[in-house]
């Protein structure tokens, strides 16, 4: 086996898979607490803050305020075969929003449809 063949063989041995997982934003604690704890017309801003902590964003509305919680999760996989390489990254967002009236009482709230799946689709 000559030096060139050894070089290509070494490169082929380096062929590998990579993986990355990142999390950003607010820990989605709203998934682990009973949503019945929050009731429109009853729950106050302070109770939401006590339960979930500071929001990602606070947005003023005409006569109230919105607490916007955002959690971001990204999972990526890469396959390096030298001849052909492929990389996939999937980013999913888990959100919770709380609308309060001018007196700081909860008007309505919502979560993202389901806890986000961040497994790349292999199909």
């Amino acid at each position, binding site marked *: 086996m000559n030096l060139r063949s050894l070089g290509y063989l070494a490169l082929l041995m380096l062929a590998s898979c990579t993986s990355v997982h990142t999390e950003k934003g607010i820990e989605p604690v709203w998934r682990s607490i009973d949503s019945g704890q929050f009731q429109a017309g009853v729950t106050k801003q302070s109770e939401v803050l006590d339960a979930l902590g500071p929001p990602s964003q606070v947005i003023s509305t005409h006569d109230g305020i919105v607490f916007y919680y955002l959690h971001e999760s990204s999972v990526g996989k890469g396959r390096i075969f030298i001849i052909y390489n492929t990389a996939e990254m999937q980013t999913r967002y888990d959100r919770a929003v709380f609308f309060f009236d001018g007196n700081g009482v909860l008007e309505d709230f*919502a979560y*993202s449809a389901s806890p986000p799946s961040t497994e790349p*689709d292999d199909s």
Partner: protein
Amino acid sequence: MRAFRLSQPLCEPAARRYLSAFLALLFAGCTTIQRDIGAELPENLDALSAAQDYREVLDILGPPRDLAVSEHGLTFLYENARLVERQVGISIEIQDYSLLKAVVGRGDADRDAIIVHFDREGRLLAHSRKQWSELIGRGGGIQFILAMLPVTDHGILTSPETAHTWGAQLLEADLPIGLNRGSSPDTSPGVIELRGTPWHAGQRSLELR
């Protein structure tokens, strides 16, 4: 079993050149890079058409990606994007070794966006959906043969959500960016912006980015 040996004619200089060229193409390092941002939006929006106010829209679509408040009402934006970059590479041989590849690539995106508008009392006024495909760009470069780096600029579509940096941006001291915070899509409650909107024009032009 008898080992296969190249026949003499194939070992002639011309044949060896073809074989080398073939091997060079074989080790080219073609690459596909996919980026999937946000969950798919519901295909059927009949329920949205029947909704009366923002509470029902929240029940149907969940929290929006972005929301804006103006003196006339409230606007929700829902959005996702699928990006695919396909690269073709040709290895570059330097002193008998191919550690670099020349790469050209093209990036495409499939986009889906829903915008929902409410009046000041939160009653649904209108909604609209757009689904489209677009060319992100083309590019090229020279990369290490094991690298998988995009050659198209898709940062405008993959930039982080502004909610992550909202608080810090409100304390932005750099001028003139700081002066524009009141009307920036990143920090102003009155502005909403689709991913991919150019940063050099429109609402951000004051920031001179």
